[in-house]
């Protein structure tokens, strides 16, 4: 039965490892992916866990009820010292199991439906135009991360949450500091400022009505007593944490991938109808979260000839599942002509990204506007000089800076 159980156990390479190209997996992950759909890897604290690199196996596990996303379980795998901190452990929604998870998700789904998101199109277009205008006014050069990729999703999330106009600058600056922090103190203090702010706003919205998600939840739920005040604040924080850095990094790394493939970029520029498929290929290729999920098994699970034991940590590699050659032809190639959505960049199962329709629309508008209005956009430094985000900051991939010119 378990012929393969021993194979590979001898060498459980360290995880995570830095990407050498910001949007391609490190060699070690590739080798693991070629060897078997499941492998063993070693975390920073010496713990050995499963890394699932096969598309079908990853989907099957993400949909399995015997697998938990609860970060408060002592056996939940910690990927970096930072995640052992208290704040990271109290993640509503993403870090909850049913039935609690489903109650929260039902509360939020209406705000992220395709129809609701489509209504945001003009708002997103305005935001994107604003930052492109600004780049054109002040540059060249520009830092695509700081001047475009970070502020665009921040403004869109402000709109979704319903933040008052006068707070936008503060919110954007604090979110940027949270994401670009290089020390634990910096990220902690920015995080606390944001929580304090969201807390005060949610309190105000209980008596004084307001727009957006915070306004609606404060009215309907806190007043009605089904959602606690602290959960409301945590929900707002999770939307920020889950939606800002991911979208910002995908804008930056997607721009990089497009610039690296001029023939693909030209195809996209020539045909506006090709943009959604280009977005899908960017998502598949850059897989900014690297992992489609991190879980712990709550029972023994047989899969692909191996046995995951109760209590084992299980990491689902979106980066590698997206390159599974059983699913994609020439999976290594960046090709905007692919059809379908067979990637795990938004995860799979009950936790599949709540904000995916919003993210897709943001990316579509960001790429099409950027490359229409600045058609000769290019990197101002050689691609191999772009500084990757430090590993200690977790598994979200990205670059700290991206100097561009035109």
């Amino acid at each position, binding site marked *: *039965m*378990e012929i393969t159980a021993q194979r590979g156990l001898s060498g459980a390479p360290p995880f995570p490892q830095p990407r050498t190209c910001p949007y391609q997996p490190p060699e070690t992950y590739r080798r693991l992916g070629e060897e078997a*759909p499941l492998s063993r890897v070693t975390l920073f604290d010496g713990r050995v866990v499963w890394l699932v690199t*096969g598309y*079908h*196996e990853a*989907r*099957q596990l*993400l*949909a399995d009820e015997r697998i938990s996303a609860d970060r408060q379980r002592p056996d939940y795998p910690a990927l970096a010292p930072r995640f052992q901190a208290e704040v990271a452990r109290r993640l509503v929604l993403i870090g909850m199991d049913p039935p609690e998870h489903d109650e929260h*998700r039902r509360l939020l*789904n*209406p705000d*992220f*439906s*395709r*129809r*609701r998101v489509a209504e945001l199109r003009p708002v997103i277009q305005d935001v994107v135009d604003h930052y492109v205008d600004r780049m054109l006014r002040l540059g060249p050069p520009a830092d695509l991360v700081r001047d475009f990729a970070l502020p665009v999703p921040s403004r869109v999330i402000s709109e979704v949450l319903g933040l008052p106009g006068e707070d936008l600058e503060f919110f954007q600056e604090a979110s940027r500091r949270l994401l670009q922090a290089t020390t634990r103190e910096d990220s902690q203090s920015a995080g606390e400022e944001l929580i304090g702010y969201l807390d005060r706003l949610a309190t105000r919205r209980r008596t004084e009505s307001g727009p957006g998600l915070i306004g609606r939840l404060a009215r309907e739920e806190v007043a009605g007593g089904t959602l606690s005040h602290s959960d409301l604040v945590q929900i707002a924080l999770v939307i920020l944490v889950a939606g800002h850095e991911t979208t910002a990094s995908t804008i930056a790394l997607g721009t990089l991938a497009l610039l690296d493939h001029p023939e693909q970029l030209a195809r996209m520029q020539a045909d506006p109808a090709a943009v959604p498929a280009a977005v899908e290929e960017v998502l598949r290729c850059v897989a900014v979260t690297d992992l489609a999920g991190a879980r712990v098994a709550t029972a023994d699970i*047989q*899969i*692909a*000839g*191996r*046995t995951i034991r109760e209590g084992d940590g299980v990491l689902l590699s979106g980066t590698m599942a997206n390159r599974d050659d*059983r699913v994609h032809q020439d999976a290594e190639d960046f090709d905007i002509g692919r059809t*379908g*959505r*067979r990637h795990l960049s938004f*995860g*799979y*199962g*009950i936790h*599949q*990204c709540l904000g*995916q*329709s919003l993210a897709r629309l943001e990316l579509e508008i960001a790429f099409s506007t950027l490359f229409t209005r600045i058609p000769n956009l290019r990197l101002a430094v050689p691609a191999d000089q772009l500084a990757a985000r430090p590993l200690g900051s977790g598994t979200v991939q990205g670059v700290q800076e991206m100097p561009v010119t035109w």
Partner: protein
Amino acid sequence: MVSAAGRPAQPRVTADRELCIGAAQCAFAAPAVFDQDDDGYVVVLDGDPGSGEWEAAQEAADLCPAQAILLADGADGADGADGMVGMDAG
């Protein structure tokens, strides 16, 4: 299975709104068969799609992250996709 002349006893395409998490993969993959209601949950527009749409419905069932879409051949998304790789220990 169901000819144009025959009337199916049950729709061939059903969706479980209790399982649905509102991810909208279905409305993307098969817009003639599925839609999302205002709250973001799946609605089946056409329970007995023609052969042209059947493939799209299969793709929707495959992509649905919550395995909320049932196709009458017993081929729901998970089985359809994962059956190929033989998930059980050999």
